[in-house]
């Protein structure tokens, strides 16, 4: 094959390049360049018209100078002139110059566009390609406006050459990405899809990219591509290694095209058509089978090309997450790669396995490789491989292996690269908390973290351990003992002093019985660190000291001495000074009772998403591997935050506990009355809240608890609902409803429309209507982010016997929900017989690559099928008497939760579904109602009576129905509404 000789064509250019290369210094180079620029300028300005060759040569020199990093401020016009040359070499240099050096000179753009237009119309495939490449390289809006309409035509024209089609497809892709509004969809779209069938594999290769991009925005318009892609893929995968000739690369048929087709398929859910799906599964199996065959070549190119397809196949299998057999096979294949001698393969296998770990079909299979992965963490030479190993350990962690994984990660931490230490610390902290069976292990782990990598233990981590210790009284004594021991070390990390100071200040009394850790010993141990610490830590220790005065009166004199010392009272730091002054005064003027109240043990912290998890998510960004969104893969761990009481709320929806200070949500067990006299001290004894207590942290006034409750996480990720934990790892894979589900459900007992759920990502609205035993419900899912949700699948599930009681038909919704868009889902509901439990609505989707799931209770309660019945007083009393069996009646006496307004009550009862009967009850304050619950199998007559007692702020609610369970259930539902 004839080769290109060096610098052929333009001798002057070659000479110039050689000159530049021979320059000994930067100055010499600049001198040579300036000389050349002057020369070119004079040529361009000269009277003599330059021939095409010279123009090309000088423009090319200018380009070279620009690429060396020098500014070029002339020559554009000459370059544009070259575009209209009819010699290829001149045109090519002109286009190259424009592509590299285009500027916003609008006059020039008009000329350029003119030249492009001519070339596109030239019917000369070489010129057409040059023009198309220029548009694709520049991709500006002006070009889009000029050509977006022409290019689709060129793409699908019957007489376009293959190479022109290839370029047109990608040119269109570029314009679409830059300005989607300029590219009109039209009848050409269908023909583009059919390019997947094109004879020329290069055309298919280019077209797949275009289709993949277009179908993301318009999945329905391009749906037909699924079956075409599958059949194309199938033909490639099943072809022999030589069938595709030009497109066989090291015995692998069309590896890049295969990868692109597999990626296109990942834009869609599994094919609905059984035949297509069968064919696709066959393809995937073939790829997995081929991985086991002996290689056809020892060359790394062969195995890379083959494995490129294999990894993309595994990605598709993971994307579908519906074929347990394939998932497990994929896992086994990756398992083999974990020990491969190629570092690349080990790295990719670890990475891919990380996503497999979050599928419950393959989670167990992934776990079997734990030893290999631990070994990788210890021995891999490339830090990025070790990082992947750490990620995978994190992803495969569950209760069964948490201790092993945490201890290996701790060991790794001692030698870990600085760049990833903080992340490892966060991961260890999260795993230790999440899978803690006994909390002493958790405390040990966190203290170890501080010991090994104290600098990398962020506030979130040590705040968290304090929260947990505060909330769990079974670990407080152990924690006190352990920090006391840890503080004995001659050099301990400042974070240890902080944790130790806080814990001893709260729970030092629990170990004070032991003479080795008597109060004076505890105090002098802490105080021995005091002078080495930062202001923030010293401030915290001062708070510990005042707490000690309350816990251990015998230390009072010593501590007052410390507070009184000039170094504190006149400290240059205003925070320390203020604390010293206030604490000293407090300890002197307040009675023991007041002290005991003011300095009482901290109340439990309201539970919410672990701040550490939020931090890790922030670090990783929304693109973070699904490894961070755990929960669903560990059926045994039902409470994600490690079972910290009181409620393992994992969703940060605005709830009372979202109150920044958390005071109102978790009042101390006995809200003490503030004795007068203490009110002017540092404690704000406001009337409506419980008494605030001095925190141990830096700023007593502003942030009593907020120090330990970092402000609500900022990034959108941090506010995400964690996937709900799994109730039963059955095939349905539906998580438990979120903790607020009952509350949300209650809001809809008496109304049919409204917002059912809302968090940072998603809003779910409901509109429903019911008639007889039938109902129709519209669910509106709104994507509140600007990012598309993928694999969006809402499903309705009937727990327990509900299937026989209620029939709910749902329509599928689009798998993609664009940012800011809303999709609607219609549910047709039929009540077959009376039921107690509402159906569950499970919503799953991927946001920024991370799987999200959420389970709510669908607002369908038995009272929705109420038919109001009007009746006269005597009829009512007669029926009331008929339903006099004890089990037919349900009664509840309860306190009013809302103001007792008769109109509101009326509206609620009507919303509940019963008719309201006037002039029945002799007491006009009372409400009486009647109705019939309509189900397919039976009807249940219901009578109700609600007696408000305004004085006592109480209600008595009585239900009588022909069915015991219905009476009780209606009574419960209704009682929560007032």
């Amino acid at each position, binding site marked *: 094959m004839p080769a290109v000789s060096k610098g052929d064509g333009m001798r002057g250019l070659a000479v110039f390049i050689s000159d530049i290369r021979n320059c000994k210094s930067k100055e010499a180079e600049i001198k040579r360049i300036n000389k050349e620029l002057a020369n070119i300028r004079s040529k361009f300005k000269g009277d003599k018209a330059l021939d095409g060759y010279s123009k090309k040569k000088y423009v090319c020199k200018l380009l070279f100078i620009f690429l060396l990093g020098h500014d070029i401020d002339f020559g554009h016009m000459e370059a544009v002139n070259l575009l209209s040359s009819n010699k*290829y070499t001149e045109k090519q240099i002109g286009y190259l110059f424009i592509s590299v050096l285009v500027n916003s000179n609008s006059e020039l753009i008009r000329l350029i566009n003119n030249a492009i237009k001519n070339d596109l119309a030239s019917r000369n495939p070489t010129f057409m390609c040059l023009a198309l490449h220029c548009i694709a390289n520049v991709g500006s809006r002006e070009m889009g406006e000029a050509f977006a309409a022409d290019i689709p035509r060129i793409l699908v024209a019957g007489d376009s050459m293959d190479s022109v089609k290839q370029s047109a497809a990608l040119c269109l*892709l570029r314009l679409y990405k830059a300005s989607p509004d300029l590219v009109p969809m039209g009848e050409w779209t269908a023909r583009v899809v059919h390019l997947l069938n094109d004879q020329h594999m290069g055309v298919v290769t280019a077209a797949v990219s275009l289709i993949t991009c277009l179908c993301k925005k318009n999945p329905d318009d391009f749906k037909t591509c699924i079956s075409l892609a599958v059949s194309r893929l199938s033909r490639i995968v099943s072809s022999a290694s030589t069938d595709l000739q030009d497109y066989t690369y090291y015995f692998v048929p069309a590896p*890049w095209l295969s990868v692109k087709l597999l*990626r296109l398929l990942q834009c869609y859910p599994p094919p609905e058509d059984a035949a297509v799906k069968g064919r696709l599964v066959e393809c995937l199996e073939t790829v997995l089978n081929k991985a086991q065959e002996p290689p056809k070549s020892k060359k790394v190119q062969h195995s890379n090309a083959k494995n490129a397809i294999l990894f993309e196949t595994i990605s598709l299998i993971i994307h579908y997450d519906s074929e347990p057999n394939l998932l497990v096979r994929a896992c086994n294949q990756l398992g083999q790669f974990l020990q491969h001698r190629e570092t690349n393969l080990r790295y990719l296998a670890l990475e891919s396995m990380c996503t497999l770990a979050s599928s419950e079909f393959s989670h167990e299979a992934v776990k079997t490789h734990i030893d290999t992965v631990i070994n990788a963490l210890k021995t891999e030479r490339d830090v*990025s491989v070790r990082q992947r190993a750490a990620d995978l350990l994190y992803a495969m962690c569950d209760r069964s292996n948490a201790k092993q994984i945490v201890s290996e990660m701790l060991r790794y931490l001692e030698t870990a690269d600085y760049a990833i230490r903080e992340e490892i610390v966060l991961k260890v902290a999260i795993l230790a908390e999440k899978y803690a069976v006994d909390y002493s292990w958790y405390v040990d782990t966190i203290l170890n973290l501080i010991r090994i990598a104290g600098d990398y233990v962020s506030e979130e981590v040590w705040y968290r351990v304090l929260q947990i210790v505060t909330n769990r009284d079974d670990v407080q004594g152990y924690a006190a003992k352990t920090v006391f021991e840890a503080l004995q070390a001659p050099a301990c990390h400042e974070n240890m002093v902080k944790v130790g100071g806080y814990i001893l200040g709260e729970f030092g009394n629990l170990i004070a019985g032991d003479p080795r850790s008597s109060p004076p010993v505890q105090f002098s141990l802490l105080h021995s660190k005091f002078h080495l610490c930062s202001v923030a830590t010293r401030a915290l220790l001062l708070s510990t000291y005042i707490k000690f005065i309350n816990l251990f009166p015998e230390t009072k004199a010593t501590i007052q001495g410390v507070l009184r010392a000039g170094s504190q009272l006149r400290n240059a730091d205003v925070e320390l000074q203020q604390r010293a002054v206030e604490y000293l005064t407090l300890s002197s003027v307040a009675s023991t009772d007041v002290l005991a109240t003011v300095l009482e043990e901290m109340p439990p912290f309201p539970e919410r998403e672990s701040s550490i998890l939020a931090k890790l998510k922030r670090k990783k*960004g929304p693109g973070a591997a699904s490894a961070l969104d755990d929960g669903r893969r560990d059926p045994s761990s039902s409470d994600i935050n490690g079972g910290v009481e009181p409620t393992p709320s994992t969703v940060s929806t605005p709830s009372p506990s979202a109150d920044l200070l958390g005071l109102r949500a978790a009042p101390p067990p006995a809200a003490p009355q503030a004795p007068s006299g203490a009110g002017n001290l540092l404690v704000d004894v406001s009337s409506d809240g419980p008494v605030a207590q001095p925190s141990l942290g830096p700023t007593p006034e502003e942030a009593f608890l907020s120090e330990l409750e970092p402000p609500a996480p900022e990034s959108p990720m941090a506010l995400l609902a964690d996937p709900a934990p799994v109730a039963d790892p059955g095939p349905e894979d539906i998580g438990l409803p979120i903790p607020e589900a009952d509350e949300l459900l209650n809001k809809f007992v008496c109304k049919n429309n409204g917002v059912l759920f809302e968090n940072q990502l998603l809003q779910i609205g409901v509109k429903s209507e019911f008639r007889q035993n039938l109902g129709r419900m519209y669910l509106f899912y709104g994507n509140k982010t600007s990012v598309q949700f993928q694999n969006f699948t809402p499903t309705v599930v009937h727990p327990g016997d509900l299937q026989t009681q209620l029939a709910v038909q749902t329509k599928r919704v689009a798998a993609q929900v664009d940012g800011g868009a809303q999709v609607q889902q219609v549910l047709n509901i039929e009540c077959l017989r009376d039921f107690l439990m509402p159906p569950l609505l499970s919503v799953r989707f991927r946001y920024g690559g991370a799987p999200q799931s959420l389970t709510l209770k669908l607002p369908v309660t038995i009272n929705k099928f109420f038919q109001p019945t009007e009746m006269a007083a005597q009829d009512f009393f007669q029926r009331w008497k008929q339903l006099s069996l004890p089990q037919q009646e349900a009664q509840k006496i309860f306190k009013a939760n809302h103001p007792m307004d008769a109109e509101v009550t009326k509206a609620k009862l009507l919303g509940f579904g019963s008719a309201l009967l006037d002039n029945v009850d002799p007491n006009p304050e009372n409400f009486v109602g009647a109705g019939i619950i309509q189900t397919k199998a039976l009807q249940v007559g219901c009578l109700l009576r609600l007696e408000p007692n305004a004085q006592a702020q109480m209600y008595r609610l009585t239900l009588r129905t022909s069915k015991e369970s219905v009476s009780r259930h209606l009574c419960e539902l209704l009682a929560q509404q007032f």
Partner: protein
Amino acid sequence: MEIRFILIQNRAGKTRLAKWYMQFDDDEKQKLIEEVHAVVTVRDAKHTNFVEGQARSRDHERNEEPNVLAPLCPARWVWAYPVTDSLSAPQFRNFKIIYRRYAGLYFCICVDVNDNNLAYLEAIHNFVEVLNEYFHNVCELDLVFNFYKVYTVVDEMFLAGEIRETSQTKVLKQLLMLQSLE
């Protein structure tokens, strides 16, 4: 699948080809070139051919004259973890470099973090084999003296950030046809 840029650099960090498929300003380009060189040259055969970095797109307030190149996605590359305000720029963009070394030259392709590593690794090799055939035992100097032809080779094989043509036979046939034109 989207290539952000293709870089060919020698061991000393001299750029032999830079092909950008995304809008970067000149400073960003220079920074990227230096950073790629810094991370790639310290790696050896025991390392993978992949380097993940975290790039972070910033919504520059661009109130300049309307640019011919509408910024597709102004991005700033930050190798270390972003340290500052996640509030003002909540969007993170993940890139990675797939590279392969041939003698003294590093061929680097920057792609999305979830792109197929091995496919691009072999795309590099495919490209190098085409260059080798076209320039008959290609060496660094061929790329220097024929820089304008290298762009043609690139455009035949990669366009708009996508793989355009993978058949070496077809690409070389086309290149020789172009070579024969005046």
